[in-house]
């Protein structure tokens, strides 16, 4: 997995509440057997007109925000379907970090598995960020995972929380399957006991 340490770039405000993963990537684009190439379909139904042209008013179609690497989101972002394609589409578009007051559980997990950092902050701070980045001139943010801070400007820094295991995985780009495979003895022990205790589950 790609490492996530510190990044600086344009942050786009997309503050609708309850943005579901169907909206992030509609089902018709889930027929792929690859993880890549979904960026062009990100937010497809609200990003493009029926003739395929871009909707001018959609934030990520605006020239300045096309290069966004951070997305500021509304409450309960990523709700609904478990499709990891939603995260793959964001990643393929170039988004590396999401900042919001609340994320849906499965989506939140899926982000970490793909090297994307979802940051949860109190709505008060989200509103401050939105106010700042709504002007193109001040739409840059810096996110430092090691220090767990968002640098707004020279005078203001916002702290955020992230659990230590996930932080380590992101900072070092660790593949958690190989970490778990190291626990083979523990898993085998569990399976041995299971066989004795609940034999009907032994297949």
């Amino acid at each position, binding site marked *: 997995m790609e490492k996530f340490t510190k990044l600086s770039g344009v942050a786009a405000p997309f*503050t*609708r*509440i*309850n943005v*579901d993963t*169907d*909206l992030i990537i*509609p*089902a*018709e684009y*889930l*027929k*792929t*057997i*690859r*993880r890549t190439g979904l960026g062009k379909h990100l937010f497809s*139904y*609200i990003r493009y007109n*029926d003739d395929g042209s871009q909707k001018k008013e959609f934030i990520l179609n605006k020239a300045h925000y096309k290069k966004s690497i951070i997305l500021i989101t*509304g*409450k*309960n972002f990523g*709700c*609904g*379907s*478990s*499709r*990891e394609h939603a*995260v793959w589409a964001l990643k393929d578009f170039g988004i590396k970090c999401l900042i919001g007051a*609340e994320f*849906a*559980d*499965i989506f939140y*997990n*899926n982000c970490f*598995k*793909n090297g994307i950092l979802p940051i949860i902050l109190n709505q008060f701070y989200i509103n401050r960020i939105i106010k700042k980045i709504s002007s193109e001139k001040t739409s840059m943010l810096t996110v430092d995972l090691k220090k767990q801070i968002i640098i707004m400007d020279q005078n203001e820094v916002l702290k955020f929380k992230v*659990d*230590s*295991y*996930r932080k380590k995985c992101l900072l070092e780009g660790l593949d*958690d*399957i*190989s970490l*778990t*495979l190291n*626990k083979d003895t*523990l*898993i085998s022990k*569990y*399976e041995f006991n*299971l066989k004795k205790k*609940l*034999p*009907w*589950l032994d*297949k």
Partner: protein
Amino acid sequence: MLQHQSPKTLFDKIWNSHLVDKKDDVNQLLYIDLHLIHEVTSPQAFEGLRLFNRKVRQPKKTFAVPDHNVPTLNRDNIEDKLSRTQLETLEKNTKDFGIEFFPINDIRQGIVHIIGPEQGLTQPGMTIVCGDSHTSTHGAFGALAFGIGTSEVEHVLATQTLIQNPAKNMRINLEGNMPFGITAKDLILGIIGKIGTAGGTGHVIEYSGPTIQKLSMEGRMTICNMSIEAGARAGLIAPDETTFNYIKSKPRAPKKNWEEAVNFWKKLPTDKGAQYNKEEFLSVDKLDPQVTWGTSPQDVVSIKDRVPDPSNESDANRKNAMERSLEYMDLKPGTKLEDVKIDQVFIGSCTNSRIEDLREAAKVIKGKSVKTKAMVVPGSGLVKQQAEKEGLDKIFKEAGFEWRDSGCSMCLAMNADKLKAGERCASTSNRNFEGRQGKGGRSHLMSPIMAAAAAVTGHLIDVRELI
């Protein structure tokens, strides 16, 4: 010395008994008893296994069935090349890794969350995962069942475990007798309307109380199914005699260890005095049939109500969301729900495509004719077969419904079953998101009998006027 055991919830008991390793308080390694896979969220996981030359640790605890992408008509010749590739990929992957697979032409094929219970794969006390958010359905059996992403699918395939944060405990108590014409779907829509689509975030919801105890397994599955629409990680219902009776006759139920299994399952329900982080109470005595008007499952009202007015909403974000919903749905505030005309009716999905759903819907339409386009998509080949044995297919077909083969179909519109832009659908599925049932399509969620009533009248209507 006797060790003091603090009272545990059903969730705590399942969680604790599946811990392989407690890394820290946040990240714990959980053993998975049953892993269900389908064609859409698994190909990239198998690709990952091959890339690192990894095996499936427990192929016999893994089970595969195609459902999301399968056509419900003319299945012998799948025209869509991408769909065909995805279906063939699942078949090849399961063959290469030694995983049991029900092919598309097998009578037992169907929606993965219908198949698990129908085959008796789903049992109390288990941990069950699938790359699909409606895995919560299996919670109706007192199993901890939740949806996961594809990276997690790969993790389970390789290790039979998952790294998870323990969820918080939430209980929703349902009391009262379900009035005539009220179904499990109305209960769960009512709950989501009350607690909102993020009301359960970070929690596992246990549904309990006398109303739940009286519900059939089908009804319990409908309720647990939509836990994810309340934001919860999973839904749970304590196993009881209803549960055991349902499982007993199923092909994969424990046979020679039956008594032993039941004795174990009986110890699972929440201990007296166990603590919940959050609790809700709902009396169902006066509940009316529920219908959604907007583009989130929490946008729900009674069929007797009117479309709400965003100008009465004080929260600015919520007001914006309501206005956008109404624009998308082409509805005006104050419109009576019963005056809303319907173009299409969809009876199906992992929420409501079981035999009980089809029986109830058939009673409503018997001897009547549809005024809309209408289709029934049974949850599995076996549900379809049973319905045909009972003559339900004839009732549906005579009324003008299309009688299709099983799959997810128009619930998520991945196959050819889609709404056209602007079409309005009375749907028994679980999500009314923008574009969910087809780009520009408008979905109203409701129970199977309410959808059946809409089909034969051409508009939303209180089904109690027809039965």
